[in-house]
Structures are given as structure tokens and as C-alpha cells.
């Protein structure tokens, strides 16, 4: 690291050496910024000749993989084709069942040999699932969500989306389970896979859409593969955790009973870990739904495609309806899979019954399917929800937005311009004007202070990487958008969290609101802001703030609530007012936890930021998005990795700080 920022050879004399080091380092940075423009131009603009063309190498590598790589028995292209085939078969089956019907022949000459499931049948089946998993309230909720899809004309798209989820989830679960088991059995494998999981969860999805697009083509299968890859990492983690949590006595019993390793795993450990594993399944469902819209960029079709299309053409009404459809689908599937995860354990049966008495829901479901199929032969209403009865709110949304825009245009525009001119643009200019050398140095210095030379090396190297691959300016735009959004999200979220921690009723409302917000796919956040503020940095920032608000509230609330009660009592006894207790006792003690919330907020903001490239930001997200449209894998991956590195730098710095602070406060 030849950064001038940390070449401060002074021996610290005073009580707090870090203060001096920082003053010197910042001083150097300022000096470089002031005199550097003419003397050290390379410190400001990373010279083009120095850029290492990693993106070109990656693109060439992917091309080589696809065109020349031969695995001996078969080529790489054959491998990708067979993977696609394995996923395509079950997908075809489910999609025929739910959406297209079983067809014979191609294109427009196709004849239906067997119809799809009637909308009535699907709604009944999902309601019965709700009844089976929990109670009639859940059944009603799920049934109404699906009914919306039929009534508002979203059925066909929704069934395409549902089919891909029904296929992607088992693959994601099975893959995650397999990797988790491998990690559980081999410590080495676990150590190898952890950093990969870290990276996978911070690299924006867009980044690996490109290579998938190139390897598998533009098709629903590619979309599902991307979805599976995206949804798998949490399942791996949860599998590892769940298996490790199995009480050692249970495992020992399995061994003593003479289980072979395979029996031990499948008959003892996995059943014993089931309830935790089900939490993982719920996660996979939610992440898959979150991918629905993004995946439609590489061919998923369905609701995601509708939203994306409406967004591109600024068709507010259509966008809202399809977005709402995704949201309702997400809520229905989330509540269903959660209910399955939390289903009370079985109880003994009083008397033994026949199959029908033991499985009433299942039998009823099959009966309904059979009846609707039979009736479908005569009644068209069974096959498709009648168009005459369909409702649409598209016009309403369009009118609403139009009227808001007409009546409040001045206010909205004034608000937007005020923030843009006075805060956003100056901040952006400031960040872009910083010499990269100084920033890399300061980041490394921060790492050194918080976590020693290892952390310094890590943060410095990651920052340097961003400069070296030539993504510095776009990264700074990312930092600017992300930084401002996080600041504002915290300014809103932390006070709400504080209020919620002090008032039970408010707390319940806030919790319910956060839970709902977190089931919304990230894209849905874009719609209202685009309607009101059109495209640009400002709209992007609002969407990011809305998306990233939840963790700031949650962690603040939680952090304040976990302050040991005896400390609060002690403070009261010492005569502190409620206000003083909050600011002098609770807040300092909760600060490490709140910082973790801020960290989480940053992570969410970064992942949302990439998506906002769709509404015209000029940051790394845009870079990834361009790479996607140009099918340039290297460019997309490098930009994606830069986003991941920004995330990792802030994550490691904040975590190091929080751990140290917690240790100082004796909280851990």
C-alpha cells in the first residue's frame, strides 16, 4: 500500500495515539487533494494504462468454456445442455399442469390433449393447504390472495411464475441441503465454502445473470438456474446450523443403535433437525419470489415480465396490478411455508382410521381436482376465469398518479430539486473529487485501527481492487447513493425503533409493518417512486430508503430491549429521568447492536441499489445492467464483485467495531 495517507511515521506521544494518526492521515489526504490536481493527476483519475483487464479475461474464459472446453467424455456445452434438460422436464410438467395444459404439436397448431388445472381447483387446493398447515384463517388468506390473481386478470402470468417457483424451490432446497451436509461432514469443505457463501450473498444477482445467460441462453430454465443459485446460500447455512444443533445424545443414540453413516443422517439427524430446516425452506421460497422479476430479464416470463415491461413503458396501472400480484403471491407462499415450518408436532391417534379419515385434506383436494376437470369438459368457466367478470384497477392507478402529478407537481418537484441541488449533487461531487489513493489509504487505516493489520490488508486490498479494475468513479456514485440512503434510512428508522422499544402497542404495529415490508420483492418498491418522481437518482434513493428501512428499526428496537434491566433500575435509582436513562444508559449500551442494524441496512441498500439501475442511476448497478444487455460476462461480474467488495469492506469494519465495543462494555 503506497498510499500517502498511512505513511505517518510519527511515534504517538499523547494519550490517544489514534487521534494523532488520524489527524496526520486526514491532513495528508487534504494536502494531496489540494496540491494533487496538477502534480499527481494519477491519484485522482486512475490511469487507463494501469487498469488490469480482468473483465476481458473473464469474458474470454466464459467464451472458451462454452466453445472449446472439453471434459473428455463430453464438452462443456453438452454439460450445460444436460443440466438445462434436467430442470426443464419437471418445469414443463408443472407448467402444463398449471398454465398451458398438456399440448401436442408445436406453436399454433398445438392441440390440447389434457386441460390445465382449473383456477377453482388451484384456489381450493392452496386453501386446503392453508387449512392443513394451520387454520381456516390462513386458508382464507391464501384463498383470497389467489382469488385476486383470477379476478384481476393476472392468472396466466401468475401460474407461469408459480410453476417456476415450484420447480426452483426443490432444486434450491436439495442443493442447499447437499452442500450443507457435505460441510457438516467435512470440516475442510465447510471452511472452503464459507467465503464463497459470503461472496454469493453480497454479489448482486445481476452479476451472475450474464454468464448464466451466455451459458444457458435466454429461457425460463436460465431464469430458474439463476433463481436456484440466488436462493441456495441461506439453505446451506441453515442446514449446517440445523445439523450442528442436533443434540449430541441423539446422534450418539443413532450410532449406538448401529446406524450406518447414511442411516444416521437420514433417519436420525435430518428428522431431528427438521424444524430448523423448514425455516431454510421458507427462506428459499422467499428468495425465489424475490428473484421473480429479476429473472424475467433472462427469460422467466410470467408476472416478473409484466412488471418489468410495465416499468419500462411507464404503464403505471399495469405495473401496480402485476406488482401487487407478485406481492400477494409472496405473502401467500410465505405464510403457507411458515405455517408448515411451525406446524405443531404430531400427536397420537386415538383410534386408527382408513386412508380417507387420516388424510381428509388430501382426499378432498383430489376430489375437487377431479370434479373441476370433469366439469371443465362442459363449462368453460372452469378453465378460465370469465373475462366479463374480471376487474382492473389499472385506470384508477394511472388516474391517481396523474392527478397527484398535476395537483402536486410543484411541491413534489420542488422537494426533489431542493434535495438534489443542496445535498445530493454536492455530496456526489465531493466523493468524485476525492483522490482514490487517499480513500484507499484511509480505508486501510480504519481497518488497522479496528482490527489490526489483517483487516487493514483486507480492506485496503479490496478498495485497491476497485481502482485497479477501473471502476472507481462508478463505485463512488454507488457509495454516494448508498451512503445518503442509509443516512436517511437511519434518521427515520432509529427514532421509530426507539419509540417502538418504549411502547408495546406501537411495537406490535411496527413489527407487523416490518414483517410485511420484508415479504415484498425488492422491485415492488420501485413502482411508487417512479410514478411520482420519474427516473433518476432521487427516485432510486427513495426506493433504496424504503427497502433498507426495516433493519434499522428492528435492530434499534432489539438493541434497546436487550439492555440488562438491572442497569436501568440502577440508573433510575440514581435519579435519572426517563430521558436520561435512554441517552446515558440504554443508547450507549445498545449502540453495538444498532451498528449491526446499520450494517444490515447498508447491505440491503446495496442490493437494492443495483436494481435501481433500471430507473437510470449511473453507478455500478448501471454497469452490471449494461453488461446484461450486451451479454458481456466479464464486465458484469467485475462490476458485481466491486459492489460485493464495497459491502464486504463496510461489513468487516462495522463488525470489527461492534465486536470490540461489545467486549469493552462486557456485553459478550
Amino acid at each position, binding site marked *: 500500500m503506497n498510499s500517502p495517507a498511512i505513511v505517518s511515521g510519527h511515534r504517538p506521544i499523547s494519550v490517544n495515539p489514534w487521534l494523532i494518526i488520524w489527524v496526520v492521515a486526514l491532513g495528508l489526504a487534504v494536502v494531496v487533494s489540494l496540491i494533487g490536481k496538477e502534480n499527481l493527476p494519477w491519484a485522482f483519475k486512475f490511469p487507463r494504462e494501469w487498469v488490469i483487464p480482468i473483465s476481458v479475461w473473464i469474458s474470454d474464459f466464459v467464451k472458451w468454456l462454452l466453445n472449446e472446453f472439453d471434459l473428455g467424455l463430453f464438452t462443456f456445452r453438452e454439460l450445460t445442455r444436460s443440466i438445462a434438460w434436467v430442470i426443464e422436464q419437471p418445469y414443463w410438467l408443472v407448467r402444463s399442469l398449471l398454465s398451458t395444459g398438456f399440448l401436442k404439436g408445436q406453436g399454433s397448431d398445438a392441440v390440447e390433449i389434457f386441460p390445465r388445472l382449473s383456477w377453482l381447483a388451484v384456489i381450493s387446493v392452496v386453501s386446503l393447504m392453508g387449512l392443513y398447515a394451520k387454520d381456516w384463517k390462513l386458508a382464507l388468506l391464501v384463498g383470497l390472495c389467489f382469488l385476486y390473481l383470477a379476478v384481476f386478470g393476472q392468472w396466466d402470468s401468475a401460474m407461469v411464475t408459480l410453476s417456476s417457483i415450484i420447480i426452483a424451490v426443490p432444486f434450491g432446497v436439495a442443493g442447499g441441503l447437499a452442500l450443507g451436509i457435505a460441510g457438516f461432514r467435512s470440516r475442510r469443505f465447510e471452511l472452503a465454502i464459507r467465503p464463497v457463501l459470503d461472496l454469493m450473498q453480497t454479489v448482486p444477482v445481476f452479476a451472475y445473470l450474464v454468464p448464466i445467460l451466455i451459458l444457458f441462453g435466454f429461457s425460463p430454465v436460465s431464469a430458474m438456474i439463476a433463481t436456484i443459485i440466488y436462493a441456495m446460500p441461506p439453505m446451506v447455512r441453515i442446514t449446517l446450523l440445523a445439523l450442528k444443533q442436533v*443434540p449430541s*445424545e*441423539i446422534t*450418539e*443414540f443413532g*450410532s*449406538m*443403535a*448401529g*446406524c*450406518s453413516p447414511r*442411516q444416521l443422517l437420514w*433417519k*436420525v439427524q435430518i*428428522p*431431528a433437525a*427438521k424444524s430448523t430446516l423448514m425455516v431454510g425452506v421458507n427462506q428459499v421460497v422467499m428468495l425465489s419470489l424475490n428473484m421473480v422479476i429479476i429473472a424475467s430479464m433472462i427469460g422467466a416470463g410470467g408476472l416478473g415480465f409484466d412488471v418489468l415491461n410495465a416499468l419500462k413503458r411507464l404503464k403505471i396501472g399495469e405495473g401496480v396490478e402485476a406488482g401487487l400480484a407478485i406481492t400477494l403471491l409472496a405473502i401467500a407462499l410465505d405464510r403457507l411455508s411458515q405455517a408448515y415450518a411451525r406446524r405443531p*408436532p*404430531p*400427536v*397420537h*391417534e386415538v383410534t386408527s382410521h382408513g386412508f380417507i379419515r387420516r388424510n381428509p385434506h388430501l382426499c378432498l383436494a383430489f376430489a375437487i381436482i377431479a370434479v373441476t376437470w370433469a366439469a371443465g369438459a362442459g363449462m368453460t368457466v372452469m378453465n378460465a376465469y370469465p373475462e366479463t367478470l374480471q376487474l382492473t384497477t389499472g385506470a384508477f392507478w394511472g388516474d391517481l398518479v396523474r392527478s397527484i402529478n398535476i395537483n402536486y407537481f410543484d411541491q413534489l418537484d420542488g422537494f426533489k430539486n431542493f434535495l438534489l441541488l443542496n445535498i445530493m449533487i454536492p455530496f456526489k461531487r465531493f466523493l468524485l473529487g476525492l483522490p482514490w489513493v487517499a480513500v484507499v489509504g484511509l480505508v486501510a487505516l480504519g481497518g488497522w485501527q479496528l482490527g489490526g493489520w489483517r483487516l487493514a490488508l483486507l480492506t485496503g486490498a479490496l478498495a485497491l481492487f476497485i481502482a485497479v479494475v477501473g471502476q472507481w468513479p462508478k463505485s463512488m456514485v454507488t457509495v454516494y447513493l448508498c451512503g445518503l440512503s442509509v443516512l436517511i434510512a437511519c434518521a427515520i428508522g432509529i427514532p421509530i425503533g426507539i419509540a417502538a422499544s418504549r411502547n408495546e402497542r406501537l411495537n406490535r404495529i411496527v413489527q407487523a409493518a416490518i414483517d410485511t415490508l420484508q415479504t415484498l420483492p425488492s422491485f415492488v418498491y420501485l413502482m411508487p417512486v417512479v410514478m411520482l418522481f420519474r427516473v433518476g437518482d432521487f427516485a432510486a434513493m427513495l426506493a433504496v430508503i424504503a427497502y433498507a428501512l426495516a433493519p434499522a428499526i428492528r435492530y434499534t428496537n432489539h438493541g434497546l430491549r436487550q439492555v440488562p434491566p438491572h442497569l436501568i433500575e440502577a440508573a433510575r435509582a440514581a435519579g435519572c429521568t426517563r430521558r436520561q436513562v435512554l441517552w446515558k444508559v440504554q443508547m450507549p449500551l445498545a449502540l453495538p447492536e444498532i451498528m449491526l442494524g446499520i450494517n444490515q441496512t447498508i447491505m440491503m441498500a446495496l442490493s437494492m441499489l443495483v436494481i435501481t439501475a433500471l430507473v437510470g442511476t449511473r453507478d455500478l448497478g448501471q454497469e452490471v445492467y449494461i453488461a446484461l444487455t450486451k451479454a458481456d460476462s466479464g464486465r458484469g461480474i467485475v462490476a458485481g464483485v466491486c459492489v460485493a467488495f464495497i459491502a464486504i469492506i463496510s461489513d468487516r469494519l462495522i463488525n470489527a467495531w461492534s465486536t470490540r465495543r461489545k467486549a469493552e462494555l462486557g456485553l459478550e
Partner: protein
Amino acid sequence: MSESSKLVCNNVWKIFGENPAGFLSRHNNAPTTNNMAEEGYIGAVRDVSLSVAEGEIFVIMGLSGCGKSTLVRCMSRLIEPTAGEVLFEGRDLLKTGVKELIEIRRHKMGMVFQHFALLPHLTVLGNVAFPLEVQGVGRQTREARAREVIELVGLVGREGYYPRELSGGQQQRVGIARSLAVKPEIWFLDEPFSALDPLIRREMQDEFMRLQNVLHKTIVFITHDFDEAIRLADRIAIMNGGEIIQTGTPEELVLNPATDYVAEFTRGIPRAKVLSAGAIMGPVSGATVAGQVLVTTKIGDLAADIVNAGAPFSVVNKGGAIVGEVTRDAVLAVLVEKEGGL
């Protein structure tokens, strides 16, 4: 070791730490407590040698953390000992292959756990039949056998229940039934009654003795409760800090505690329950006797008779030969024992 030894441990060590084997050989297989503290190793089992005879109840007793669980797991090789030898029916268990070990566990070993370790997703019947299921025994046969043992432990009528629907005592009955389903030759019980409240514990101990009177298994029983050890044991091994301090019958421990540590345990025990006629008998005096007792009869059991009779009893061995005499005074001395009396 004698012919009838079912299980023998020779110089078994289990050390936790970075490189236990290296640590052990560095110190010539005899590291001291200081060595361990200095280098950050934990000696959970230290140089343990013992032998469990066919058909006996061998109790391992010691306070929490002294290494009992680790030792019993070394005996079944659930934990790989760092050094030493474990002979099961004369075969070195530590040298058997994976397949053979699985076979031994399937057919010859049973284990009961402190926290029951029942599989939550199976019914009582499923749990008890589980060890047979993994052997590949057909459904009919294994369920029939499971019902037999369920009856043995008195849980008839609860076959269809899930573990969480049962009380602690009932759950442990399932654990016991399950470990008996395969008719094991050696039966390990790791503090099977410690998680139960005192009344139930007592009841389960009686139940356990009733079972053993029917089954005559070779048993390794772990407990931290000396009363329990005295009630159940043929022989007791007292453990402390990973080492076995003394092994002997309850009577031997009470009469000749090897260290103050052992004496501390035996102090609160009513001697009449532990000592037998053989321990307090004198030479035959020639006086008229009021009756006969076996050498092994506990003082507590003959006290009432001898006090009423007012004359000595002669003591006979199993063969019926007279080997000595107990007097009323000797019995009274035990009954009114003072601390450290005798």
C-alpha cells in the same frame, strides 16, 4: 483378567486439546495435572483400567465433570480414546473395522441416555423398534418385539404416543425399552435417572432392579448419586478428575475407603444398609445360636430378628458351612453407629 470379564479397559486415556496423541507421547504416556494445565489440555479420562464381569452391575460414580460420560463413551467407542485398550468379549474394540463395530453395536450393545435421546418424529412404538429397523428387520417382527419390551417396561397403551406427549419418567421407560429391544449383551446407562425428580427416580430404580432380576444383563451404570450407586451396584468405581480412585463393592468402599475423597462420600451412608453379616462376624463361640444367616445378608435385614431373639446367629456361606457368628452387640453397634464407628 478373569475368564468371565465382559468388558475390560486397560490404561484408557481421553485427552481433549490440539494434538492429544502428541501431547501424551511427549510426556511418556503419563502427563501430570500440571502438564495439562500448562499446555491447555483437558484430561477427561486418565489412565483408567477396569474390568466388568459377566452379569454384574458395575457403577461408575463421580461428581459432575469428572469424566464419567466420556469414559462410558470410550467403552462403546462413541468417543475414540486417545490411548489404551478396550476389550469387549476379548476383542480389542479399538481395532475393529467400521462394519464390525456397527454389527457389535447392533446386536450386543444397548445404551440409555441422561436426556432420553428419543427421536421426536417417531411414536413410542417407532422409537423402540428403531434399532431393529436399522438392522433391516421386517415391520411385523420388529413391531412384535417392540411391543414385548414396551410391555416389559409397563408402557402398554402408549405405543402410538409421541415422545413429547409423555412425562420424563415415561420417556425414560421408552429409552430403556428401546435399548433392550435388540437383547444387548452389555447395557450402558449414562445417568439414566438424573433428569427425573426424586420420587420418580426411586420408582425407576426399583423398576430397574426388577428388570435386572429378570434379564441378568452385564451393566455399566453411570451416576453422580452415591445413594443410587449403593442401591444398585455389585461393584462401584469412584472417579475424580478423570481417574478411577477406587473400585470395590459398596461394603469394601464403606469399610476401607482408599482416600479421604471416597470417605467423604461414604460418610452419610447408613452402614446397616451396606454392611453384611460377614463383615462383622466373629469366630464361632460355641454358645447356643438362635438361627442362621447368609454371609451376604445385610445387617439392616437381620437386625430385627437378632435383637428379638437375644442370642447370636451363626453365619453360613453359600454352601451351608458355618463360617462365623454374629452377636446382638455387634449388630447394635452398627445400628447406633457413630461417625467413623466400627
